[in-house]
């Protein structure tokens, strides 16, 4: 059942077995997993079904430290949460992502891949990826494009990409939740405080407010915070009625250890030959699934060099004549039509078809108007004879993605000028990188969050050293010469440094309350019935995108709740 909290009477007291705060990837995953249980679920979402600027402005807050996106644009506050602007890139964590790495202070989850592994397949289904195949060799076998040769110093990884039309959890699951008898989802229900018993050892109720001025409360046996890596600590810190430092914060850890996936342009690969195939490292379709390859160091090398994991994203730069025609969105439309063979959604099919039709129309502009067959206009022919390079340069303009697609099919890869390489760093845990509260309050009276993102020398050194090692491996393989654009001796960060909209670590997982906010079951240390879902529980972030692991952990938490609530 979906309803609007603004229509509830002021002072309403709601009650359920499990109350989930936040209807993003994590919250919806937990809610869905509990639908077919006798548990009465209350799902609270601060926003509506669509973007609303007054609700979104509740996310505003100052930023310090490393320059970061404005906090109200770095996430979305409506049904589906940040999946509504998600890029759809998915990859499972590696075993090493969970392990304690002696050279990375604060690394090491209290759980391992084996604990999460059973949930990855269900998570993959929930994000609507078609296959559980994550093995590079397997993909390479099915792919027309080849990855770079692997060596003991250079590895290739593969991510799968969720089709754009399927990325929003809100669109995908709103009907199912609306139909679910055991789930009551309240929109525009903003949790402003968590109430506990005197000892702050159990949550008694949540205080909820709407922007229309109504106040209500929700009591439940179990509570799950799933509001993201900035809001989860904000809510815990702001709930300071019983504990002046906020809930779960007896050891001053809530909001600390904010980690991101810092990225910047780290180098340029000059290919040894213009026919070098780099298409495997661009987003492309294989048997109807969109995948993308990355370069990285094998874990043994990370260990021997004492580095954090750094994933290298490659952006091939093709001959300018074909660059425009090969813009992935355009070429993808025809590729999708050819490869999906009706397997995609009607929306995707229609959109791709219109793009191709648009190209046909573009092409018709340069043929004789009214001629029954698309013969080039005499002016085009005359120009071709007089100055062939002008027309040749205009071929992508003449036929758009049809030219690009045909060219890719015929040649396999467009003439490669260079490959720009961006790094994506598994940021080392950093106690000084944190979310705190400021005095300024939002429209609901909650203190706003302040983000102070900090990076360490280990992060920077790892990015540079990874580039150097990959550069040597690339040269040894005869692929080209890699120029590292970050000076090893310069302590500053490149000006294009940015995050990946991944907010992690602020309620980090650890066995001991002295080193983490939640335990291995995602329960807040010291509070019997308060759980956290989402990437704020990540102890380290891995260099892969977090959504698939967020969902897998949420499903694991749902299983735990089923067990303890039974």
């Amino acid at each position, binding site marked *: 059942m979906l309803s609007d909290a603004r229509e509830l009477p002021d002072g309403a007291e709601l009650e359920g077995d499990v109350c989930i705060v936040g209807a993003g990837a994590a919250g919806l995953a937990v809610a869905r997993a509990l639908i077919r249980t006798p548990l009465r679920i209350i799902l609270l979402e601060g926003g509506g079904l669509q973007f609303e600027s007054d609700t979104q402005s509740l996310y505003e807050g100052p930023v310090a430290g490393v320059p970061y996106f404005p906090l109200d644009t770095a996430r979305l506050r409506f049904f589906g949460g940040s999946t509504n602007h998600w890029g759809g890139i998915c990859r499972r964590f590696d075993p090493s992502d969970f392990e304690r790495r002696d050279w990375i202070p604060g690394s090491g989850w209290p759980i391992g891949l084996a604990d999460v592994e059973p949930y990855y397949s269900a998570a993959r289904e929930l994000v609507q990826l078609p296959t559980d195949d994550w093995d590079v060799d397997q993909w390479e076998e099915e792919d027309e494009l080849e990855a770079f040769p692997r060596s003991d110093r250079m590895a290739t990884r593969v991510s799968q990409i969720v089709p754009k039309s399927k990325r929003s959890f809100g669109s995908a699951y709103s009907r199912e939740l609306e139909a679910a008898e055991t789930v009551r989802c309240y929109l525009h229900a903003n949790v402003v405080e968590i109430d506990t018993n005197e000892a702050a050892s159990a949550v008694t109720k949540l205080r909820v407010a709407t922007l229309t001025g109504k106040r209500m409360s929700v009591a439940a046996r179990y509570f799950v915070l799933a509001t993201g890596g900035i809001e989860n600590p904000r809510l815990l810190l702001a709930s300071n009625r019983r504990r002046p430092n906020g809930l779960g914060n007896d050891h001053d850890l809530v909001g600390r250890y904010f980690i991101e996936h810092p990225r910047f342009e780290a180098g340029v690969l000059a290919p040894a030959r213009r026919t070098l195939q780099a298409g495997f490292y661009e987003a492309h379709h294989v048997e109807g699934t969109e995948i993308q390859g990355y370069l990285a160091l094998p874990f043994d090398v990370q260990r021997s060099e004492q580095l954090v994991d750094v994933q290298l994203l490659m952006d091939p730069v093709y001959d300018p004549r074909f660059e*425009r*025609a090969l*813009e992935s969105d*355009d070429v993808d439309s025809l590729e999708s039509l050819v490869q999906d063979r009706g397997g995609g959604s009607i929306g995707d099919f229609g959109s791709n078809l*219109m793009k191709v*039709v*648009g190209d*046909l*129309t*573009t092409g*018709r*502009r*340069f043929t*004789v*108007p*009214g*001629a*029954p*067959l698309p*013969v080039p*206009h*005499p*002016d*085009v022919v005359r*120009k071709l004879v007089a100055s062939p390079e*002008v*027309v040749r*340069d*205009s071929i*992508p*303009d*003449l036929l*758009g993605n049809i030219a690009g697609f045909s060219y890719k099919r015929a040649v396999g890869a467009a003439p490669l000028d260079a490959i720009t390489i961006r790094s994506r760093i598994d940021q080392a845990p950093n106690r000084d990188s944190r979310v705190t509260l400021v005095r300024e309050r939002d429209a609901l009276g909650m203190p706003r969050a302040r983000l102070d993102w900090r990076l360490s020398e280990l992060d920077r050194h790892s990015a540079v050293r990874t580039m150097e090692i990959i550069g040597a491996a690339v040269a040894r393989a005869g692929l080209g010469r890699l120029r590292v654009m970050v000076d090893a001796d310069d302590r500053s960060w490149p000006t294009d440094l940015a995050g990946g909209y991944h907010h992690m670590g602020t309620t980090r997982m650890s066995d001991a309350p002295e080193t983490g906010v939640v335990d291995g079951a995602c329960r807040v240390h010291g509070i019997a019935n308060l759980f956290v879902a989402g990437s704020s529980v990540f102890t380290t972030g891995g260099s892969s995108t977090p959504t698939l692991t967020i969902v897998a952990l949420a499903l694991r938490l749902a299983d735990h709740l089923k067990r303890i609530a039974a």
Partner: protein
Amino acid sequence: MPAASAFYFADIPNRAIALLVDVILLTLVAFVGAAIVSLLAGPAVEFDTAAEGVGDAVELNHGVATLDACLSLVLSAGYFALSWVRLNASPGQRLIGIRVAADGDRAGITAGQAMARWTALGAPFAVAAVLATALSLNGVAIFGIPLATWYAVLLITTARSSTKQGLHDRLAGTIVAKRATPLPPSAADAL
């Protein structure tokens, strides 16, 4: 039935081949026409080598292009109507050995019948091209489906007709016949 045994109603494959030949010839004629228009009125297509965006490198002079489209329309009408009236067949049809005749007396067709037949067969495409060019419309998106539907109707009505008269033939009162070896008596009776 004196001449009946020497003809049968031209089937779709024969007519399709004839139409393909006509389309190729008409395209060449339109190409020459466009070249003449460009000589007299200036280029219809110009290249801007400094342009960056997709589709921006080539610019269309809509006035000249509209002249091209109008000329193509006139050439199409002239090509088919004249050849049907004067030669009893378009060049493509002559090549295959088929001819257009009046439905009633199997004699040559009148100018009115020829124009009616072209109006149903060639005009939809030619007029759509003129409109799309003159009004800078997305011709494929706007006219593609209606045109495809119309030509499908012509094809289906031709295929389903025992006299191979598509809707365009019925509107114009024409048949398309192919010279043949004598037909078996039953088929000849049908004529």
